[in-house]
């Protein structure tokens, strides 16, 4: 499972284990699964798609401004606004 964190300046919005997250990067959307290579990208305004299970429905979270960071520990999205 992928550890996913969504943080805004006001609070920690999400911190959970999920199957896959699709992030709206500045240069295109990218999906992050467990074991993704270290990666950092700025994001454009749009929706993050969070898939809890492989077959499950994706949840949409609108975000604005910020960047996403993939490390060995998981994916962290630092957004200026979320939800």
């Amino acid at each position, binding site marked *: 499972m992928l550890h996913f964190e969504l943080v805004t300046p006001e609070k920690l919005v999400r911190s959970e284990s999920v199957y896959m997250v699709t992030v709206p990067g500045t240069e295109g959307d990218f999906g992050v699964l467990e074991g993704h290579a270290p990666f950092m990208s700025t994001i454009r305004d749009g929706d993050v798609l969070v898939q809890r299970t492989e077959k499950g429905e994706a949840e949409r979270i609108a975000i604005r401004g910020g960047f996403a960071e993939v490390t060995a520990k998981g994916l962290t999205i*630092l957004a200026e606004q979320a939800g």
Partner: protein
Amino acid sequence: MASLKALKLRIGSVKSTQKITKAMKMVAAAKLRRAQEAAEAGRPYAQRVEQVVASLARTAQITEGSSPLLAGHGRDQVHLFVVATSDKGLAGAFNSNIARLARRRALELQEQGKTVKFLTIGRKGRAVLARQFRDGFVHAVEPGDLGKLTFADAKGYADDLIRRFTAGEFDVAHLFYATFKTVLTQEPTEQQLIPVKIPAQSAQPAADAVVEYEPSEEAILDSLLPTNIAVQIYRAMKENAASEQGSKMTAMDNATRNAGDLINRLTIEYNRTRQAAITTELVEIISGAEAL
């Protein structure tokens, strides 16, 4: 000696003042808890942004082309003091402590022949500093309730600062606020905002893995630096909000206690005066009876 009636009125008025200060103390306590929670909730974001900026800034070379927010204008003649206080008083020494620190640093810099300008966030700081540094004021904003301040507000302040910096209005910006230590102690703090200070980290980044950047490292850094400034301001405002309420709580607690002491003293005086009146009456009756 005051008359009985005057004393009674006085006791009544002190009692109602005590009720007010007690209520204010309880309101401050409730607001303090919320302000502290808000300050804590904002910490993960601030830490992350700081880490990322620090690690990017270390790897990216500071060159002619890099952002002036990081490299500076190459001089430090004009300093801008961003002094964050609150709009309201009745918070003990909270506002004056911040203003005092700013004033001391301003005088130090002026002695070295630098120019100091002021931008105040909060009415109280402005009132104190305007007396001494009338010419240096560039802007003053009044944020209202510090607890309700959002990140968007902080970003607004940051954008304004960056615009002034880019226009060459100043070379170095310092931020003054009070760090919340405990309810009893709030420490006035100075922090350099622009150019961004890279925290010297003793521990090297643990992961030596090659990180891919999209777009480039420099582009990410450029977009992050303004955010970082907004984050610093936001954090300072949250610290200030907690400090203000803590300071207010302590001040109002003291006021309540002082009112209690005053009531005790006045009550004793009231009782003495009453007893004196009774004694006088008794003496009059007894001596009248003896005369018969």
